[in-house]
């Protein structure tokens, strides 16, 4: 029996895979979407509104009892991380894409802002992004729903930051601030990262995948299918993917004219490294040896503080949709002794997290009073910085440690070099200055080491096939019908949250693949 051959096989169903699948299907392309985790129902499966005391260990599990999904790195669910993301949606600017041109450090993207701008707009119109028009050169405006008002603590910081010449703006999120796109508006329950059960916040399943299927497009989802290899023919064309069923561990195969790997930065790199063949003994599309290199996750610190103006004041319901304000990059216009810059996110913990109480000094009545007074005033300040690519920060596979599918675990090696250390010290210094000028009592976090978030790079785009893995359309330099679209393709990370750019790249690549299919090039 001849196996069915799809036009495009996409591995992973998150921001990139979900967007790509719907955009391709709407062009009439026959799409197979292969996802390692199960289908999840946004309305019923997440513990969205649970409270910690409902569970003996006081940790709210992601999924309701008996509902599978989101249980390990390799097996999330249809929708990927978009089910649990915080929905911050920035456009990158020309500076973010052309860092080497601007300050002779790091690497340029093989793209300019003008190449991405139409796709940012397409995504904004399609999914709904709220925000303010701020007219900042470094943070381009878009097509926005109205912004959500700032919190009291944000306004206090806004006033303080202004004294230092630093601007605080409304956050921009792919969350609806009014009913739109046949979806309800956000109702500010503060549980964005626990699975938005009304899909006011964008997730790829409810906004891209399911609507495309309901509209009758050819989009078939293979859930619970953990891909272990992208297969290649002797004439240098990928032919599809082999997977293991998440429950039975039985092997299966999906074949296609073109394969797109979109299973989140580190997992995409791992899958390609695992896909060894006679043609590519060091990993698929890795003739350059660059696969796994140039890993550039964001690095962040978290400063915890209390806004003194709010200590002892009545508690209000200010959960909102977590962070409502943002400090966009400002150091890139100032004199400094390092390359790149940072931006600051405002407390995206909700008020159910009182973990700081254990570090408050004392005990007894005075301690309890002190926690109660500071509770309405607590705020976390999280600056995010950009890392330059360097040879000590990379991803590889550990064949000594296998996961439940017998597949090697991916290892992240992160070393902060001089530039990162200087940038980190400066972003902590600025954060403390801004908070103190805003009348905050600094509680902790100023001595912490940086931690990584937003995994990016490892499979970067570039014009030079010797120094990059993909071309400007996210296509492998080596294999003409292999694409990778997700955070791994970023040659430079900016300091801005990456998902909007991942979705814009997905829209651009979908158009490109559709055109090539029409021309018969696949």
């Amino acid at each position: 029996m001849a196996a069915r051959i799809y036009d495009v096989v996409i591995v992973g169903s998150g921001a990139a895979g979900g967007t790509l699948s719907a955009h391709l299907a709407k062009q009439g392309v026959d799409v197979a979407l292969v996802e390692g985790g199960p289908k999840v129902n946004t309305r019923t499966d997440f513990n969205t509104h649970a409270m910690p005391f409902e569970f003996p260990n006081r940790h709210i599990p992601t999924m309701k009892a008996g509902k599978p999904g989101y249980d390990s790195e390799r097996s999330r669910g249809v929708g990927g991380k978009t089910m649990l993301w915080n929905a911050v949606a920035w456009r990158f600017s020309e500076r973010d894409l052309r860092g080497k041109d601007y300050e002779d450090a790091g690497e340029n993207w093989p793209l300019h802002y003008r190449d991405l701008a139409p796709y940012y707009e397409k995504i904004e119109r399609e999914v709904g992004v709220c925000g303010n028009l701020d007219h900042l050169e470094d943070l381009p405006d878009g097509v926005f729903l109205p912004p959500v008002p700032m919190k009291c603590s944000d306004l206090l910081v806004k006033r303080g930051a202004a004294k230092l010449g630093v601007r605080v703006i409304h956050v921009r999120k792919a969350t609806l601030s009014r009913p739109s796109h046949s979806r309800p508006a956000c109702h500010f329950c503060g549980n964005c990262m626990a699975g938005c059960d009304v899909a006011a916040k964008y997730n790829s399943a409810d906004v891209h995948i399911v609507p495309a299927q309901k509209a009758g497009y050819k989009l078939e989802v293979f859930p619970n299918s953990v891909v272990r290899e992208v297969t290649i023919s002797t004439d240098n064309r990928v032919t599809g993917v082999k997977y293991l069923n998440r429950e039975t561990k039985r092997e299966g195969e999906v074949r296609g004219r073109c394969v797109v790997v979109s299973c989140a930065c580190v997992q995409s790199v791992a899958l390609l490294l695992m896909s060894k063949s006679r043609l590519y003994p060091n990993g698929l599309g890795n003739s350059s040896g660059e696969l796994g290199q140039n890993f550039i996750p964001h690095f962040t610190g978290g400063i915890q503080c209390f806004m003194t103006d709010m200590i002892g004041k009545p508690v209000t319901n200010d959960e909102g949709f977590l962070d409502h304000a943002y400090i966009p990059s400002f150091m890139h216009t100032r004199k400094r002794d390092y390359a790149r810059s940072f931006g600051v996110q405002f407390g995206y913990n909700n008020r159910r997290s009182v973990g700081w109480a254990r570090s408050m000094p004392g005990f007894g009545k005075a301690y309890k009073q002190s926690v109660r007074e500071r509770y309405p005033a607590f705020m976390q300040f999280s600056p995010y910085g950009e890392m330059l690519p360097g040879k000590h920060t990379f991803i590889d596979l550990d064949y000594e440690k296998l996961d439940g599918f017998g597949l090697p675990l991916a290892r992240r090696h992160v070393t902060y070099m001089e530039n990162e250390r200087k940038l980190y010290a400066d972003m902590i210094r600025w954060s403390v200055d801004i908070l103190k000028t805003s009348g905050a009592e600094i509680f902790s976090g100023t001595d912490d080491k940086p931690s990584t978030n937003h995994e990016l790079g490892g499979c970067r785009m570039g014009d030079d096939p010797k120094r990059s893995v993909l071309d400007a359309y996210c296509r492998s330099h080596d294999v003409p019908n292999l694409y990778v679209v997700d955070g791994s393709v970023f040659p430079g990370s900016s300091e801005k949250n990456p998902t909007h750019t991942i979705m814009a790249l997905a829209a651009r690549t979908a158009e490109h693949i559709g055109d090539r299919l029409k021309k018969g090039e696949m």
Partner: protein
Amino acid sequence: MPDRRETLKIIGAIGTTCAFPFASDELYGQHVHPPPGVQSSYGAAKFFTRDELRTVSRIADLIVPGALDAGVPSYIDYVVNADDGWRKLFRESLADLRAAKFDELSEQDQVAVLEKHIDQPGDDLQTRLFRALKSMTADGYYTSKAGLVDDLGYQGNTVLESFPSCEIPEH
């Protein structure tokens, strides 16, 4: 499709539950927040002996008055029981406390013991015990209904028709 104002009217009409006007769609049908959950019932201590539980309960209630009523000792039992390192530390250090007749001390003397050990550096058994008890008591109390909702006054996890603008005039 109703506009924002009509939607708000619908939400307003039914208070803290809300109906989004998309009843035909399985995803966006009536959205009702579940009622506030009840505190999980853990039952009898699984690790601590009766004597140990009495000591732990006493210390927890001295660290955060009200911790006993909030069920914090059973949370501590849960956490300690799940980890071999904690089990060893608690068994040994609680035996030492019992040998020192901690339970029979006056409240003033018990408080003096806490003052000697809480928030102190050091790795001796007693300091490690009180450090763990402080963290576990704070965690357990401020994730309990009594601590988080009744004491701190947590108000979130509800349906708001719009995000309230700041009402403090000088902001």
